[in-house]
C-alpha cells in the first residue's frame, strides 16, 4: 500500500474538484478566515482584560498591605519609644493608657495584616520572587507576635518598677515607690539616734542609690550595697538603739537592699527587652524594606504583564492578519494555479499554434473542464504537427536536392520564362536570384536554333537527355553545356513548361584537351632525358683517364635538367667540363646537349687553345639560342688535365688548366687543406653574347699525388632545408675535407648523402652535379 502524505492527498482531492466546487471551497475558506480573525480578536481582547484586571488587583493589594504593615510597625515603634521615654514624667498609668494600649492594638493590627499578606502571597505565581519570600514573611509575622508579647512583658516589668498604684499581685506599689518608702522609713529609724556616723553612712548609701536610679549603672547600686555594710556594722555597734529598735532598723535595711536588688533585676530584664526590640527591629526592618521592594517589583511586574498581554494581543492580531493575508494569498494562488493560470496557458498555447508553433501544448494537469479542453487542444495540435512535419520533411528533402545540387536546375515555361533556378544555376549563368523573372531563356542559348531543337525534342519525347549546346552567361562568355530535361504537365495533361538540369562541360572539354597535350609533351621530355643520360660519360670512360681517380654524379630537378658535365679524351688530351644552363626543362636540356656536342666537336678538331675553344663554342651556341628564340645561357668551366711523368714514365702528379666562368673550384690537397679558385675572371656566361673572347683567360693548378679538385653546380651549395637555410660552401668544404682520405667515389657519396640529409624531405628545386677528381 502506497503511503501518501496529507498534502498530496489534499492536492489530489483539490484537483479532482470541478471549477464550480473549487470556487465554492475557496470562498468558504475566505469566510472561515473572517470568522477566525474575529474570534482571535475577541480572545485577545478578553485575555487582555482578564490578565490586566488580575495583575492590577493582586499587585496593588499586596503593595497596599505591605505599605500598611510597614507604617503600622513604625507607629508601634514610636509608641514603644514614647512609652519608655515618657512614663517617668507622665507616670506609669498615664503612659500605659496613652502609649502602651495603643501599641498593643497596633501590634494586633500588624499581625492581622501580616496574616492576610501571607495568605495573599500563597496565591501568587510560584515563580515570582515575592512568593519566595514566604520564609521572611513567616519571620516577620512571628517577630511581630513576639514583639507584642515582649512589649507586654516590658510594660509589666515597668509596672512592677514604677506603678504608683498598688499592684494586685503584691498589694504594694511599684518597687521604686517601695524603695523610696523604705529609704524614708530607714531614715526615720536612724534619725532619733542622733548618731552622725549612722546618718552619714545612710546618706552615702542613699546617694549611690539615687545615682543608680538616675544613671541605671549597676556599679552605683553595688556601691550602695557596699555602703550598706558599714551602715549595718554601725547599727549593730551603736549604743543608741534599743535591741528592738536595732532589729527593726536592720530589718528595714534588709528590705531596702532587697528592693534595690529587685530593681536591679527588673532593670536587667527591661534592658533585655530593649535589646530584643532593637534586634528585632534590625531583623525585621530589612524584611519590610525588602517586601516593599518586592511588592513594588510585583506592581512593576503587573505592569509588565499588562504590557506583555497587550503585546500578545497585538501579536495575535498581527498573526491573524498575516495568516489572513497568507490564506487569502494561498486561495488566490490556488485559484490562479488551478483556473486562471490554466486559462492563460491554454490561451497562450492557442496563440502559439496560430503563429505557427505546432510544437506548443497546453500543459494543464487537471481533470476539470479546463483540463479536458486542454487535452482536446493538445490532441488536435499533435495531429496538426504530425501532418505538417511529414510535409516539411518531404519539402526539405527536395529543397535540399534543389539547393545543394552542383548542377544547374531550372524550371521554365514553354514561352521561355524562367520560373526558378537553383543557386548552382544562378552561379553558372552569373545571375542574381532577384533577376530570374526578367530573363528570357532564349537569351541563354548562343545559337537560338538550339532552343527550338530542344523544345521540339522535349515535347516530342516528354524528356531529353544530354542535349549538347553552347550557352551564354550574363557576362557574355560562352560555355558548353549538356541539358537533361522533362516536360511539365498541367492537371489536364497539357505542357506547362520544362524542368531539368544544365551541366557546364567546358572544363571537362578543356581538361580532355590538356590531357592529350600533356601526353604529347611528356613523350618529348622523356626522349630528351634519355638523350641526356645517354651522352653522359660511362664509368669505364672515367676509369680510362690516366692519373686521375674520378667520380661523377648528376641528378636533374625535372625530367630534363640544365646541368652539364663531361669527361672527354682525345689524342692524350683530357677535357673536363662542367656547366649549368639557366632554367630546366626541354629547352635547357637541348642547350646542354648542344654544349656537349660542341665541346666534343672542338676537342675532336684538336682545338687546344682554351680561349678559342670557348669562343667558338660560345658563338655556336649563341646562334642556336637565337634561332631557338629561347632566353637561355650557361656557366661553363673547361679543364685540361695533363699528368706529370718522370723520365722513366712514372706519374708524379698532374696539372689542370682551367678556363670559363662557373662556381668556385675547390682544390683539395693531400692532407685535406682546401683552396678555392674563383672563376669569375676566367670567362663569361656562354650563349649570352656573341663575343666573349676578351673575357676568357686560363688558370693553372698543380696537383701532387693525393691532391684533387671538386667541381659542382649551385644545386649543391644552394640546396635548402626546411628552415630555408642553404647547404653552402663551408659545409661542402668541411664534408670534403673530412672524407678526403677516402676514394673519389666515397667522397662523392659522402657529399651527396650529406646534402640529402641536409635537405631532408624538402623538394630538390635545382639540378645537382658533382665531380670529384683525385690525383692518383
Amino acid at each position, binding site marked *: 500500500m502506497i503511503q501518501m502524505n496529507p498534502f498530496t492527498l489534499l492536492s489530489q482531492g483539490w484537483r479532482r474538484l470541478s471549477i464550480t466546487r473549487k470556487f465554492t471551497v475557496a470562498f468558504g475558506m475566505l469566510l472561515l478566515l473572517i470568522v477566525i480573525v474575529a474570534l482571535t480578536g475577541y480572545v485577545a481582547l478578553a485575555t487582555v482584560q482578564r490578565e490586566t484586571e488580575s495583575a492590577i488587583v493582586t499587585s496593588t493589594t499586596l503593595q497596599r498591605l505591605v505599605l500598611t504593615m510597614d507604617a503600622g510597625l513604625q507607629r508601634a515603634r514610636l509608641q514603644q519609644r514614647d512609652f519608655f521615654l515618657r512614663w517617668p514624667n507622665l507616670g506609669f498609668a498615664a503612659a500605659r493608657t496613652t502609649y502602651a494600649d495603643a501599641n498593643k492594638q497596633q501590634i494586633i493590627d500588624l499581625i492581622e495584616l501580616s496574616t492576610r499578606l501571607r495568605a495573599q502571597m500563597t496565591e501568587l505565581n510560584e515563580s515570582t520572587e515575592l512568593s519566595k519570600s514566604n520564609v521572611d514573611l*513567616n*519571620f516577620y509575622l*512571628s517577630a511581630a507576635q513576639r514583639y507584642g508579647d515582649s512589649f507586654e512583658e516590658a510594660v509589666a516589668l515597668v509596672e512592677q518598677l514604677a506603678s504608683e498604684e498598688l499592684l494586685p499581685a503584691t498589694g504594694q506599689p511599684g518597687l521604686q515607690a517601695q524603695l523610696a518608702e523604705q529609704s524614708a522609713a530607714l531614715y526615720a529609724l536612724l534619725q532619733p539616734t542622733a548618731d552622725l556616723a549612722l546618718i552619714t553612712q545612710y546618706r552615702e548609701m542613699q546617694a549611690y542609690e539615687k545615682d543608680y536610679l538616675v544613671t541605671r*549603672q*549597676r556599679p552605683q547600686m*553595688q*556601691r550602695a550595697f557596699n555602703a550598706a555594710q558599714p551602715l549595718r556594722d554601725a547599727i549593730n555597734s551603736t549604743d543608741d538603739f534599743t535591741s528592738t529598735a536595732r532589729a527593726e532598723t536592720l530589718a528595714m535595711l534588709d528590705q531596702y537592699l532587697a528592693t534595690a536588688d529587685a530593681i*536591679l533585676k527588673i532593670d*536587667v530584664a527591661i534592658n533585655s527587652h530593649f535589646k*530584643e526590640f532593637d534586634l528585632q527591629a534590625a531583623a525585621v526592618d530589612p524584611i519590610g524594606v525588602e517586601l516593599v521592594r518586592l511588592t513594588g517589583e510585583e506592581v512593576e511586574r503587573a505592569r509588565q504583564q499588562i504590557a506583555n498581554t497587550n503585546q500578545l494581543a497585538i501579536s495575535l492580531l498581527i498573526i491573524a492578519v498575516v495568516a489572513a493575508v497568507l490564506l487569502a494569498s494561498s486561495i488566490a494562488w490556488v485559484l490562479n494555479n488551478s483556473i486562471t493560470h490554466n486559462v492563460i496557458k491554454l490561451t497562450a498555447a492557442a496563440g502559439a499554434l496560430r503563429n505557427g508553433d505546432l510544437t506548443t501544448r497546453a500543459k494543464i494537469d487537471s481533470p476539470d473542464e479546463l483540463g479536458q479542453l486542454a487535452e482536446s487542444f493538445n490532441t488536435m495540435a499533435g495531429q496538426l504537427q504530425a501532418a505538417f512535419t511529414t510535409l516539411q520533411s518531404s519539402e526539405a528533402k527536395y529543397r535540399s536536392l534543389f539547393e545543394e545540387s552542383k548542377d544547374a536546375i531550372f524550371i521554365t515555361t514553354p514561352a521561355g520564362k524562367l520560373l526558378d533556378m537553383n543557386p548552382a544555376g544562378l552561379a553558372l549563368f552569373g545571375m542574381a536570384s532577384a533577376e530570374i523573372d526578367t530573363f528570357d531563356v532564349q537569351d541563354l542559348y548562343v545559337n537560338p536554333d538550339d532552343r527550338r531543337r530542344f523544345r521540339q525534342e522535349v515535347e516530342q519525347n516528354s524528356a531529353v537527355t544530354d542535349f549538347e549546346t553552347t550557352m551564354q552567361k550574363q557576362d557574355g562568355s560562352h560555355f558548353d553545356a549538356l541539358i537533361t530535361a522533362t516536360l511539365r504537365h498541367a492537371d489536364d495533361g497539357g505542357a506547362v513548361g520544362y524542368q531539368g538540369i544544365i551541366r557546364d562541360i567546358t572544363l571537362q572539354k578543356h581538361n580532355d584537351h590538356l590531357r592529350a597535350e600533356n601526353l604529347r609533351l611528356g613523350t618529348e621530355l622523356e626522349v630528351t632525358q634519355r638523350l641526356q643520360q645517354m651522352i653522359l660519360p660511362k664509368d669505364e670512360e672515367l676509369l680510362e683517364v690516366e692519373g686521375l681517380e674520378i667520380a661523377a654524379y648528376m641528378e636533374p630537378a625535372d625530367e630534363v635538367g640544365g646541368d652539364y658535365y663531361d669527361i672527354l679524351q682525345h689524342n692524350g688530351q683530357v677535357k673536363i667540363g662542367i656547366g649549368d644552363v639557366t632554367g630546366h626543362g626541354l629547352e635547357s636540356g637541348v642547350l646542354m646537349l648542344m654544349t656537349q656536342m660542341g665541346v666534343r666537336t672542338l676537342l675532336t678538331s684538336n682545338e687546344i687553345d682554351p680561349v678559342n675553344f670557348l669562343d667558338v663554342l660560345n658563338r655556336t651556341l649563341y646562334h642556336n639560342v637565337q634561332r631557338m628564340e629561347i632566353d637561355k645561357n650557361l656557366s661553363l668551366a673547361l679543364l685540361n688535365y695533363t699528368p706529370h711523368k718522370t723520365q722513366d714514365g712514372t706519374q708524379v702528379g698532374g696539372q689542370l688548366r682551367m678556363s670559363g666562368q662557373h662556381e668556385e673550384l675547390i682544390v683539395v690537397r693531400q692532407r685535406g687543406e682546401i683552396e678555392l679558385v674563383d672563376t669569375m675572371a676566367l670567362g663569361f656566361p656562354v650563349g649570352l653574347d656573341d663575343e666573349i673572347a676578351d673575357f676568357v683567360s686560363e688558370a693553372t693548378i698543380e696537383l701532387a699525388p693525393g691532391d684533387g679538385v671538386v667541381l659542382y653546380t649551385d644545386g649543391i651549395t644552394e640546396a635548402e632545408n626546411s628552415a630555408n637555410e642553404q647547404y653552402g660552401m663551408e659545409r661542402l668544404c668541411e664534408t670534403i675535407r673530412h672524407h678526403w682520405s677516402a676514394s673519389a667515389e666515397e667522397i662523392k657519396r659522402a657529399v651527396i648523402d650529406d646534402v640529402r640529409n641536409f635537405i631532408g624531405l624538402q623538394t630538390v628545386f635545382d639540378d645537382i652535379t658533382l665531380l670529384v677528381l683525385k690525383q692518383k
Partner: protein
Amino acid sequence: MKHLLSFVGLGLLTTLLLVSCGGKAEEIPTCNDAIGCVTIAPDQPIKISNFQSRTGPLAEVAVEGERAAQLAVEDKGDLLGHQVELLAEDSGCTPENGTTGALRVVADPQILGAIGTTCSGAAETAAKIISDAGMVMISGSNIAPALTFFAGERGAFSQPGYYRTSQNGQYSGEAAAQFAYELGMRKVATLNDGDPYTVGLTEVFALTFQELGGEIVVATTVNKEDTDMIPVLESIVGTGAEMLFFPIFRPAGDYILQQTRTMPGLEEVAVMSADGLINDLYLTDMGDAVTGMYFVAASEPQDAAYDDLTNRYTEKFGAPFTPFYGIYYDATLILLDAIESVAQKGDQGTLVIGRQAVRDHLTNLREFDGTTGKISCDHYGDCAAGSIDVMQVQDPTAGVEGLRRNVVYSFTPEK
C-alpha cells in the same frame, strides 16, 4: 457539522490520553508523627540550620562549630538521595539574640533541626522557640545546667527538642568546686553576669563547695556591659576570699581579671573561670595577669578518630582555635543519623520525616560512635561524652594549646 464534532471529540480524546500518560503519581508515606512531619520532595534538599553565634564573644567558637557541621555534612554525603543544606543563621550570644535568631530559623518550616546555639544565653530563649516549632536543636557548646539538668532536677530552660553534645555545666561546676576545695580554698567569691551559663556554673559551684565545707563569701552579679568592676571587687575585699570564680565572657571577664590584679587586698586571690574565656585572644590580651589563672572545661579527647578529624579540619580550614569543633562535628553527626534513621522514603524519592521521631531517636541514642567518644543521650538532652579538666595558665603566650597541656585536675562525671 458531523465532521466538526468528530474533530472536537478527537482533540478531547488526545488531551485525555496525554494527561493519563503524564506519569504515575508518587505514593508518599503517611505522616503519623505526633508533632508533624517534614516532607521533602525528590529534588529538594534536607535543610538544617547552622545556628551559631556569628556575633558576640564566642564568635571563634561559632566559626569552628559552623565549619565542623559543614565537614560532617560533607563526610556524610547525600542523605537518602538528598543533599543536605546547611543554612547559616546568627544565634548571637544573648537571650535576645537567641529569640530573634530562633524566630528566623522556625520561619522556614522545612528545617528539621538546628546545630547550635553557641552560647547558653541564646539557647535559653532559642531552645524554647525551636522546640515549640517541633524542631530539634543540638548544641556543641552550651554549658548552662538549666538547659537540661540542674541540681538533680530538670533545668528551668529545659526543652523537649533540646540536646547537647557539650558537657553540662553541672559537671564543670562540680569539678571546679572540688578542685578549689582540694586546692585548700575555703572561702570563695563568685561572680556571674546574669547569663544562665554563668549563673548555673556559679550556683553549682557554690552548692558543691558549700557541701564540701567551704564558704561562698560573695555571690554577686555584674552586667555584661559593665566596665567598672571596682565596686563589686571592693565588696569582696575584706571577706577573706581566697579564690574568685567568674565563669563569664569577654569583655566583662577582661575587666574583672585586670581590676582584680590591681585591687588592694585581692593580690593573693586565686582566679578561676571556664570555657567562655578559653581562647587564644583572651590569653594573649591579658598577658601576665592571666598567669596562674585556672580554667575548668571539658577535656579534649585523645584518640585516633579525634586526631583524624583534627587533621582533616586543619587541612581544610587551618588549625582550630578551640576544642569545640569535635563536639559540633558529633552534634551534626547524631542529627544526620537521626534523620536517616527515621525518614520514610516514597517510591520516587520523597522523604517524610517525623519530628517527634527524630527527637525519640536522639533521646534513645546509645553508644553512638562519635569523634569525642561514645555518645549517649539522657532524657534531659545531655549527650556529652568525656570528662572535665581543670587547667592552669603557665605561659599565656603558649595559648590554648599550652593551657590544654597543663591539666591540674580531672573529673569524670557520674551520670
